[in-house]
């Protein structure tokens, strides 16, 4: 009997030691529970962004970029904490979409700017994308959708970054991630003086215009449902909320500067 108890204790001790040893290595070091640390995500994000933007028609016009940057800075300033140094790239494309890439890189297509009726609507979508980045949704979603092997091979330089980059462009988030990003966006908008009705109006209009249009990429990567629009309408701004205008220039003037396709 004693022998059995001793051997059982040794067996459990060995298992515990192995577990503690693996735990202490700290494969996941990030406090968010992400498989990659912030530094690793930044490195991977740069690789992927470089790959995507090489083939994209990036807008370099100073006027348009100045308008967008002024809005971008205000939205980013509304972040409670900031994990990344955000770089927002404006790409000439009729696609009505914005895409979060790993490491704080965000692509905004000019189609989105054209579809937005006000700069506040654009800010709403941007705040939503920032939510995905801050919540570390991008990499975790890629891992679930495409497997960790693709990420690791790209990160170690053994794999095809191009393949990974293309996968990311069609990446989708699950409902919980979308809801969390929405909630994140509402709080950011509240901080910068933008009412969430702009978020609701953008997506409501998007849903009404939903047709099998190749430009409606945003619909496939950001499924719209009534609950999201309702949540935006129900969101209560804090007591010290003061509504602000994001851009002094008329939005149509900004849109007129956008290049034609």
């Amino acid at each position, binding site marked *: 009997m004693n022998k059995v108890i001793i051997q*059982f204790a040794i*067996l459990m001790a060995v298992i515990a030691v192995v577990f503690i040893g693996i735990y202490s290595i700290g494969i996941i070091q990030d406090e968010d*529970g992400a498989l990659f640390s912030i530094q690793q995500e930044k490195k991977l994000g740069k690789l992927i962004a470089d790959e995507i933007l090489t083939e994209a028609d990036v807008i370099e016009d100073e006027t348009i970029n100045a308008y967008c940057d002024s809005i971008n800075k205000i939205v980013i300033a509304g972040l409670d904490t900031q994990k990344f140094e955000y770089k927002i790239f404006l790409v000439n494309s009729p696609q009505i979409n914005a895409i979060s890439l790993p490491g704080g890189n965000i692509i905004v297509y000019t189609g989105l700017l054209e579809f937005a009726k006000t700069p506040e609507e654009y800010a709403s979508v941007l705040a939503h994308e920032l939510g995905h980045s801050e919540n570390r949704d991008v990499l975790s979603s890629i891992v679930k959708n495409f497997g960790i092997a693709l990420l690791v091979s790209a990160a170690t330089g053994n794999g095809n970054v191009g393949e990974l980059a293309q996968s990311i462009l069609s990446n989708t988030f699950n409902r919980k*991630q979308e809801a969390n990003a929405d909630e994140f966006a509402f709080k950011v908008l509240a901080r910068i003086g933008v009412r969430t009705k702009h978020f609701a109006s953008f997506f409501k209009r998007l849903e009404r215009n939903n047709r099998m249009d190749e430009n409606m990429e945003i619909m496939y990567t950001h499924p719209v449902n009534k609950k999201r629009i309702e949540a935006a309408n129900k969101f209560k701004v804090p007591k010290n909320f003061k509504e602000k205008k994001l851009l002094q220039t008329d939005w149509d003037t900004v849109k007129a500067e956008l290049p034609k396709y």
Partner: protein
Amino acid sequence: MTDDKYFYIEREREDASGVYLMSLMVAMAGLPLPIINLFAMLIYFASTIKKATYFVKFHLYQALISQVFIAVFNSFAAGFIIDIIFFDGTLTNLKLSYIITVGLLNLVELIGNVIAAVQVRKGVFYKFFFFGEFVQLLIGKNE
């Protein structure tokens, strides 16, 4: 005329090593779910335990009990994996470390089963660390 004693010992070896092979086959057939593996073992156990000699009985119990032990650990690992993949649970360092540890435990069990299957087929009375002693405590020693 067959040598009955030789035939019986041969049959014993087949039955005893069969239980370890059952575990390997189920794992290789892509059925890593702990409950299915355990269920397969139980079926083999139930069908073989009647009229089993001590040699066979010992190895049946050893294989089954070690499988139950692993199944407990596997159940938690399976729960974590299902939570992460289907219910958007967070993959923490604790959960990943546990999953890897259980993976290693399964690997050790797999290797143990292979060795046991080979040794028992040769007629060796093969005892796993702890499980062998525990089974002898349960069913007594073959005096």
